[in-house]
Each structure stands twice: as structure tokens, then as C-alpha cells.
């Protein structure tokens, strides 16, 4: 009973405290780079698409708003044939970014995603893909992966020994 009265008193005291509300849009809030807003697909330092269409973002998405299809180019790189995010479903939870093994999918501080027509909230790869590396400069998945692609043969990735000569029995 006393605690209830104390609660009432504490809440009443807030009559005289300042409101924390930021008067958007007159006042713009300060958003940090890790703010979870509109999703983009980034490129690796060589300017190639980072996304390898592994489907982990789609799998982790709690509202299933990501759909993509893997394809492969002549170099052996995997990339998405299409990559679609339905922002009318997206809850900007950021799980896709956490799941992404290549830092391809990133959330940006742009949260102003309003449209009069819901169809305009369906973003295809051409709408998602940006030119830069986003928050993680310098990272390139294929430099650490074992798969050979054009310009990076077997044994040329980080921490890789040259390919084995299978005709040799030497240690």
C-alpha cells in the first residue's frame, strides 16, 4: 500500500520535469551510424557486390520480408540474381545485418521510409545496392574464403598454403 502511494507521489513529481520528446520533424534527432534504418547492400573494396546470396538474411528475417535467388558468374562468384526486400513488412530489427557473413547487408540511419503506395516499398537489388563499402571498409569475403574466383586462385586467400601437388607423397 505504501509503495503504491510512493509510486503515485513519484509520478506526480514528474509534472515538473522536462519532456524528453524531440519535436521531429522541426528538430532532427542525432542518429548514429549503427542506427537501424533503411537497408542497403554494399560492395567490397574492389567494387564487386558483397552479397553472395547465402540466404542467411532471409532465413533469419522474423517477418520473412527478404527474398533472393543465388546465381553464379563465370568467375565463380556467387551473387543474387534478384534481391528483394519488402519494406512494408520490414521491422528494421537488424537481424539480417547480424546474420550476414560478408557485411553485405547493412542498416543505415535513414528511417524516413514513407510512401503513399505500398508497392513503392518493395526494393529490388538496384534500389538496395550502393557504391561503397558502408560501415565496414576493407573487408572482402573472398579474400578469406577458400573458393577460387577470377583474380584469386586456390591458395591465394589469406592464410592459405599453395595447392597440393597430388602426385607427390612427400610430407
Amino acid at each position, binding site marked *: 500500500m505504501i509503495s503504491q502511494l510512493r509510486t503515485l507521489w513519484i509520478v506526480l513529481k514528474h509534472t515538473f520535469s522536462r519532456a524528453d520528446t524531440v519535436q521531429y520533424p522541426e528538430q532532427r534527432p542525432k542518429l548514429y551510424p549503427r542506427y537501424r534504418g533503411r537497408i542497403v547492400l554494399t560492395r567490397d573494396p574492389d567494387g564487386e557486390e558483397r552479397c*553472395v*546470396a*547465402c*540466404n*542467411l538474411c*532471409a*532465413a533469419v*528475417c522474423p*517477418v*520473412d*520480408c*527478404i*527474398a*533472393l*535467388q*543465388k546465381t*553464379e558468374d563465370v568467375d565463380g562468384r*556467387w551473387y543474387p540474381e534478384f534481391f*528483394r*526486400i*519488402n519494406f*512494408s*513488412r520490414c521491422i528494421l530489427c537488424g537481424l539480417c545485418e547480424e546474420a550476414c*557473413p*560478408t557485411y553485405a547487408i547493412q542498416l543505415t540511419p535513414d528511417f524516413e521510409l514513407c510512401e503513399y503506395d*505500398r*508497392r513503392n*516499398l*518493395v526494393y*529490388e537489388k538496384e534500389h538496395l545496392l550502393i557504391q561503397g563499402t558502408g560501415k565496414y571498409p576493407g573487408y572482402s*569475403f573472398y579474400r*578469406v*574464403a*577458400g*573458393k*577460387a574466383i577470377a583474380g584469386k586462385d*586456390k*591458395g591465394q*586467400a589469406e*592464410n*592459405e*598454403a*599453395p*595447392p*597440393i*601437388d*597430388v*602426385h*607427390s*607423397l612427400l*610430407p
Partner: protein
Amino acid sequence: MPDKIVGNDFGPPKAGPKDGLQGGSPHKIVGNGFGPPKAGLHIEIDGKSHPVKAGENLLQAILSLGLDLPYFCWHPAMGSVGACRQCGVIQFKDANDAQGRVVMACMTPVAEGMRISLQGPDAKAFRAGILELLMTNHPHDCPVCEEGGECHLQDMTVMTGHTVRQYRGLKRTHRNQDLGPFINHEMNRCIACYRCVRYYQDYCGGDDLQVFASHNHVYFGRQEDGVLENEFSGNLVEVCPTGVFTDKTFSRHYSRKWDLQTAPSVCVHCGIGCNTSPGERYGSLRRIVNRYHGEINGYFLCDRGRFGYGFVNGPARLYQARSAETGPLDVSTAENRLRAMLEDAKGIVGIGSPRASLEANFALRERVGAERFHAGIGDAEHGCLRTLLDLVRNLPLHLVSLREAERADAVLILGEDPTQTAPRLALALRQAVRNRALAIADELGIPHWQDAAVREAAQAEKSPLFIASPAPTRLDDIAARTCRASPRTIARLGFAVAHGICPEAPAVMGLTPEHEALAAEIAQALTSAERPLIVAGTGCLSEDVLRAVGQIAAALAAARPGRATAVHFAVPECNSLGLALMDAQSLAHAAHTIESGEADTLLILENDLYRRADRTTVDALLTRARQVIVIDHTLHATAERAHLVLPAASFAETEGTLVSSEGRAQRFFAAMQPAGDSRDGWRWLGPWPCLDDLTRALADSLPVFQQITACAPGAAFRIAGQKIPRQPHRYSGRTAMLADIRIHEPKQPEDTDSALAFSMEGAANDHPPALNPFVWAPGWNSNQAVGKFQDEAGGHLSGGDPGIRLIGDGAGTGLPWSVPPETEASIADALRLVPLHHIFGSDETSMHSSAVAERAPHPYVALNPEDAARLGLAEGEEVELAPDVWLPVKCLPGLAAGIAGVPAGLPDLPVPVTAWQSWKPNKPGDETS
């Protein structure tokens, strides 16, 4: 002739519905080994006593109990070699031992009162350590690996708890090889468990996949780039615990396992009836994987079945109805046109199909009437199937399942090359010859799962396998004796074998001494065997051969009273036997009915008549018929000549029942919605509201099919009120996949024909085996999760292997002895044509898959080199097979003399070898005969 048959060599006679499920009845899961205690022992695992089966190894026992223990090199079908060291557990000396020692579970036989620990800290640390070592060189590849998400290595890594890589040194790398159109190779990922070569060499008898180099440099591949030749190479995808071997056709339109919508299905590329699990994504069929069936395919499929799915979305697929005059039609116009044409008809001739379901054929039969229903297969094949059924019904024959075939200890193959016509059967026969090795192991007290020891003890000893065929077969390498002869001679050899077994059977006059001796040897081997098996089929289109098999079976039954003879007849297509059981009329009868003017309309269901009879006959038939209607999923020569073509659903889009060559009726289910305007074949044909009604009507009107309604639970079946989802619970992209077309998400399509739902929601477990679309268990994302669905490791499915056997249970009472045929008269300068089957090429639908087509042979005429020399023909020289059909000569050493082999069923070969014809080769410049 024998007395009453009380059993066969493989256990008590099977009562029909015993191993099936009653539709609608609540499903009972026996559990993962927690069911009835097995005869045998008890062992103590982490302080709890568990019943186990004597003679097993610890790993088998632990997995059969439903417990989790990581492993790599062990495989239920291949036994243990103790190579990977992953399945370490602690074994205690006695009740007082608290320390224990780490042993390999896969190499340790169970013993009464044994005390072991799976969860002991030492055991866990040991396993985590081993896994870390296995992972040192594993690349950082999972996102770009086709195995990711269904990878045994991923599962085991999580299971052992190895989460952080401590190794900072250089990783060894390997160059990959091009292994042909089916398999991708990525050797960096290899953990050297040796499963691939053990499977490829020891299990399949392949010799072009080897191990190279040494220590941690070992390399699994071919000597040089090139196609993996074995017909079962596709199973490497599932056998390899990680992503070294992956499905190349799947990679082209890749989807993760969790994104595939699947359904329990049955392979449609031969008569064996292997269970498959086709996977769909974004409206197209993406791949086929094995669906375990304890009696049929077990863990393995053939490459035709695994890679032959391309026709479902292939370039020749029909998506729209079309009329010969006006081109594409919409659905309602097509319906009206069909109705008008059928009303206008002066009599309809229905031609069914051995590649359509029983239900679709029955719907056609109901539409046109039983006497106007025709089988739609070549007349020679029709005759063979009639003979075959006659034998099965009247003789004490037991049609063996593949698991039973694997246990046969003497096998005679007459006139068939099972690798090409019923591939999975050939793989089973390859295991059957190992029974001698297992017997030797038994004598020495070596358990069967001690793979290396059994092989070491047996060396090259094999159970006898005799092959009599017109051409060399892919099983010749394991055969005790082979015999190359014309089908007639093969039949005569068979009759001689029968006479050798039972002197009452009429003797064969005029055999060559070699054949006499061979017949005596075969008779001796079959009589002395515990579980003899005879394999034949419609492969060489010879009724004589089939009658010879009947004679041998009757002789064996007479020599071994009370026991039915084990037989397997390979049939060419997925429902050949089912269609034969419907007692349809022959194609010649259809031609006669049209010719005589009794009927003027042809209603052809899923059939290309140009594959069934020669071009002139079919041309005449199609020209004579006033109206030709074709219902099919693929555009073929017959459909191109039809006045109305209606698009039918392929096997991946419809439900139905197929009868396998074992006589087993099996239900397959749609993995996806019919593409385009296509719909189930039977939906075009009648007013059937749902499949169950049609199946019920079929069961009621044809007594042989009485039990088929029990093949699988019906559409009303529910688990706790819920349907079974076709999609895994982590199916992704639901709200985005169609958002580009329409922002409003469509309702999930309803399925009125089965208890499966096109959804990720529904009953998560306790699926009856016949309705289980895919295997998954917590912690087991790869297909090896199937262990959680078996009554014991490598055993039968919990709840019973699906399907109901309709015929061939050894109930026949006997036929009078047949009279052996005479030697055929030789024709001067002429050869007899025999069809030569090809696993890649002879099947109609699989040839629409580019990967399979790539492996198919080019048309040829095969001649024995001596015949070729006699006729003055050189390799590669063109000869005229039929008017204006010129084919190159291929010299085939080992082909029986006096015959010419023509590949069966190749799409660009317009002359099907429909009967046992004689042929005089014409060279260019010769006068056309």
C-alpha cells in the same frame, strides 16, 4: 509342382496392409528405438540402462536409441572403418571404474552390461578436439557452399560445441576437377573421412574415383578431369558429410534446404519406385533428394532419378492448352473445346500411359469405358507384361524388394542389364554378391559392420551371380559367369537351368556344350543357395525369356517345397506394372478400332505414341482419327499432331499412386502447384472432386487395387487437427517472394487432395512415413537426420515403410511346364535387332534434363566386331536402320553374335525397336530394301 507355399526366403509372407497405414487412423510412432525392447542386451549409458540389439556396434546402438553422437566415416549402409575418430565415447571397465577410457563407438561391439558415457567431460573434450583438428583446413566457405544448411559437418561441429577456431596457421588447398554434368567438386572442404571412395568403390563398384597423395594432403578425385562414370555418383552429394561433392544441376538454381517446398514423392524414371523428395522454390522444381525407404531405395538413388527432373521446368514443358488451328487457348475455352470434341465423337479410344498414375489412367478408363481403354505401350512390351503378370499370378513367385535382393546369395540375371533398366536394382545386386563375404565373416566371428575386416577376410570371394544377356552389362565385373547370346538362346538356357533344377521340367534339346555346362552350374548354384534370386524383365522384349524365368521359379519351388522363389522383373516405366494390372487393350487394338471406324477420336493421356510403335503405324493412326486429344506435361511428337493439347501436371505437381516392379503401390504427392494452366491429368478427364474419391472408385471397381486406399493416409488425415506442412519451419521470404507482382500477399493455396499443406504451418512431427516430405530433426539438418525416423540405424522407417504390395507374394499355385522354344532359324546376312538400354537416354522424361541428355549416347547400331567384319562394316560407317534412318555402326565387343543392338528410346532416334525384328544392314549406295 509345389505344395502350398508357406513362406519365402526372406521371412514370413507379407500381409498387405501390415506395413502401410490406414487412412485417417491416428498415426503411431514406435519411437527411436524406445519401442518394443529388442532381443538382446542392455548397456548402461551415462547411468541409464538401455536395451540394445546384440551384434551391433556402439554407435549404431546409440543412434538407434535416439541419442546424439557425432560421426563422419560411419554410414549405416557401409559399416565402420574407424577412420575419422569422431565418435569417441568413454567405456568403463566395470561397475567400479570411474576413469574409463575413450573408445571409438563405431568400432566397439556392444556387450551385456557394458558401461559407457557419452556426456563425460573427457569424451566431450575428445570429440571437440577431434572436430577442431578436422576443421583446421576447412575453408571459410559456408555462405558460398551448396551444402550449407544441410551439412553434416556443420551439424557435428555444433553438436560437439567447437565454436572458435584456434588454428592460425596456413590452410592446405586443393585444385578442383570437372567431374561432369552432375557433380561439383570443391576439394578444399574435404575432411578426409574416406566415405566417398568407400561408397564409390566398395559399394558401387566404381573405379574412377580414387584417393591420391598422402597424410593430410589426401585428394579424392579422378586421375584427371572427366565425368564420374558410375551410375550412382549422385549419391556422393549425400554421402559426403560436407560440400566436396555437391549437386551441379541444383547449384544452377540453388536454394537452401530450408527454402525448399517438398513432398513425399516416388521416382518416375524407371519401374523400381524409389522414394524421393523433390524440392520446389519460386515455382520451379529445384532438385531431387533421396527419401529413405527401408525396403526399396534405402539411402541411395541412381543418377537418372536424381538428375532427371529437368523436364518439369524444361523447354518442352506445356504450360497452356493449345489447339492445332488457333494456337494457345485459355482454360475455359480449352474445357469447352474438350467437352465439344468428346460430345462430337463417334466413339473415343482412350490411350493410357505407364508414366501416369493409376488414378489418371483410371479416370481415362472411366471416361472411355473399359473396352476402349488401351495401355499405350508397344505391343511387344504389352505381350511381355501380360506374360509377366500371368507368371506372377499363377506361380509361387515372390517379387523381392531391393532390401531382400541385397540378401540373395545366388543371383541369375536373364536377358536384362539392370544397371540400365532398373538401376537401383543393380546396386542392390552388387550388395548381394557380398553375402559370401559376410558368410566368411560369420565363420570367423567378424561382425558385418567391421567393413575393412570383412573385406580383408573375404578378399575376392563373391556369391555367385550369373548374367545371360545379349550385350555386356555393367555388372559383369562381379559376375561369376556371363553368357552373351540372343534372347531366344538366353531363354533356352533358362529352360535348361530349370531342367537342371527339377528333372520333371522338359529338357532343352540342341544346346551347345558350353551352355549345357553353364546351365548345370547355374542350376547347382541356385539349388544350393539359401536365398536364390532370379532377375529378368522386359528389357529384351522377349516373352520366351520371361517364360524361362517362370520355368526356373517353378522348378526351384518344386525342388524346395513350401518356399516361393524370389524373382524381380524389371519393368521400363514407373507405372508399367500398375497399367498392366488394369488389363488394358493393346495399341494394335486401338489402331484396329480407329481403322474400322468404330471410333474416330483418340484421347491420349501422357503418352508419346511415336515411342511405342514405328512412325508409319502411328502416322496412320493419327491421320485416320478425326479428333486427337493429348493430355500431357511435355510437348512431344504426338502432341504436335494433336488437334487439342491439354497441359497436365507433372509428377511434382500432382498426386497419385504408382505400382513398382516389386508390386508395391505407392502414393506420390505434389511438391508444388501445377505450373501455368496445367492441372492433374485426371482433373481434365472427369468430375472427380478430389483424389481420394477417385482412388476409392478405382479400389472399388478393380479388385486387384482393393488395398490402394491404404497406401497413404487420405486427405482427411490430420495430426492434432493439423495438416502436414510441405515447407520447413524456417521457410523464408514469404512476404517478399511475390511482392514484386502484387503487394498483397496471396492466401496459401489449399490442397484438397492430400493431408499436406502448401505452408510452413502445421503439425511439426509424428508424420506418418508415407506423408513425410523431408527429414529434419533438431541438430540434424542434413539428410542424415533420417536416423531419427528409423526403427534402428539403417533399418525400417518408424511406423512402417510406406506402400502396399498388391501382387507377387508367392501365392500362385502353379502352371503346367512350358515347352522350351526352338533355336531361331538363322537368316542369311541378316541380324536380329535387340534394344540396348541406357540409363541416360532410354527414359523419355529424364532426357529433357540437360545434364542427363549430356550423358546420353548418340544413336548407333551396335554389332559384334566379327559380324561387322563379316558384313564388311567398319566402326562409324553409316547404315540404314529403317527407311531414311542412317546410323553409324558401333563395334561392341562382347555383343552376342547374330544380333544388332539399337539404343532404346533415344529422343532423336525415331525407330523404336518394338519387336524382335530381323534386319539387313544397307550401306550407302546399296539398294534400299
